[in-house]
């Protein structure tokens, strides 16, 4: 592990580059946050919410809003690189592909965290669910990691095609089903504790480990040129 400090520096310089360009251009997170809020409001009007069904319906609305916003925003993970041709230069740098992927993933997680900090309070107010707290933070973080891992990898896949933004949701939604099921169920059991539920947070951790490992391993094949 003699290269560890170097890899660490490379990692943070890519993360820093993405954050700086995002702070200057605000291409992704403003749109993502607005979209997530809008989705929550649409769900608020679409469902006939009553006291007895809110706990069953609202977590689904939250996670659909997150997944849709992620696909919309993270689909542009590599858009700047692909549009300006800087992807080739990034790949020419003597940096491991794994480090590039993990840096992109962490950058995306930071964008998503900002979006969620805005969207979750709105969710709690609109749906009137008193589930804000440490448990929700953990579950939102776990679900977000799985979603971001798949979106980041397949943003690179879809971005290299003619399909672009059209293709990404078709690729990731079926793959993300386990994470969405787990996150919705875990959020529901925060609102209304259910007996005999499987340990969803633990399962979410397992899904995250599998998805992050797979994406980190296979990213090199996607960007190899």
């Amino acid at each position, binding site marked *: 592990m003699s290269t560890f400090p170097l890899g660490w520096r490379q990692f943070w310089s890519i993360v820093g580059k993405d954050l700086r360009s995002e702070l200057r251009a605000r291409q992704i997170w403003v749109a993502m946050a607005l979209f997530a809020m809008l989705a929550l409001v649409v769900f608020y009007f679409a469902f006939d919410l009553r006291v007895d069904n809110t706990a069953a319906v609202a977590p689904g609305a939250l996670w659909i809003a997150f997944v849709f916003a992620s696909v919309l925003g993270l689909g542009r993970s590599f858009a700047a690189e692909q549009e300006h041709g800087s992807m080739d230069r990034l790949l020419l740098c003597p940096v491991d592909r794994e480090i590039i992927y993990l840096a992109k993933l962490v950058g995306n997680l930071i964008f998503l965290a900002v979006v969620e900090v805005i969207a979750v309070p709105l969710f709690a107010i609109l749906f009137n669910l008193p589930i804000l707290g440490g448990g929700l933070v953990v579950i939102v973080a776990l679900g977000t990691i799985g979603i971001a891992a798949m979106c980041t*990898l*397949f943003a690179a*896949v*879809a971005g*290299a*095609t*003619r*399909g672009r933004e059209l*293709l990404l949701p*078709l*690729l990731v*939604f*079926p*793959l993300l*089903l*386990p994470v969405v*099921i*787990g996150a919705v*169920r875990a959020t529901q059991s925060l609102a209304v504790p259910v007996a*005999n539920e*499987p340990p969803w947070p633990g*399962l979410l951790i397992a*899904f995250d480990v*599998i998805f992050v490992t*797979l*994406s980190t391993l*296979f990213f090199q*094949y*996607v960007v*190899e*040129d």
Partner: protein
Amino acid sequence: MSTVTSRPAAPGRDAPPRPESNGVLGLARRYGEYVLGVAVAIGMILSIWAAFVYAPTDAVQGPVQRIMYFHVPMAWLAYLSFFVVFVASIVYLIRRDERWDWIARGSAEVGVIFTTLVLISGSIWGEAFWGTWWTGEARLTTTLILWFIYVAYLLLRFYTGRTESGARNAAVLGIIGFVDVPIDYFAVTWWRGAHPGETYVLDGTTVNTPAAVFIALMLALATFTLLYLFLMIQLYRLERYTTEAQRLRAQVEYGDTGE
């Protein structure tokens, strides 16, 4: 277009030219496919006969149970296809031989068609026996998700065209998609509470199953496996000709040096 080479007739990028077919191997190569095709045709006729005439009518389910003789083999074929996509994708990423990519692409096409047929035949059976076209049962839901994953796989291939990067990206999806299937299955099982299985007395392994049911099912399974081989040979050849044709076209358009 890094795949453009100056050897239009070579079957694979790294493959030596095909030897002239002689002896037993040559005979098998020349006529094996026809033998296989005839075997599939005979097997299909026999399977239909066995399913509708030879096998007894199910005491509980009635005639609708006969769907099983095609539903189960088609499901087997669909899962087999996607397993082949998985293996061929791994080998492609390691060896970078485009012939493995052709196998993966062809197998995914076969798999999607048969997954569609499985979903349709299963729904018909469900409507007749359960009284509903669809339930949230784990195996049904997983098969539906499987269908979505591999339709997206074909769509990805459509959008990328026959390029090397397209083949690599598709291989990544072919591997991750297949790994995702058991995870989906478990997630859906837990989501519904773990009680699949007992709704399916379809497996032909229950105690009082007559031998005729078992024989008819095995016959159909064998026939559909041969059908898969037959279809794969056709699709492999189609892939080879398509790639060669594309290469020739590229040569005409861009000259002999490639792009």
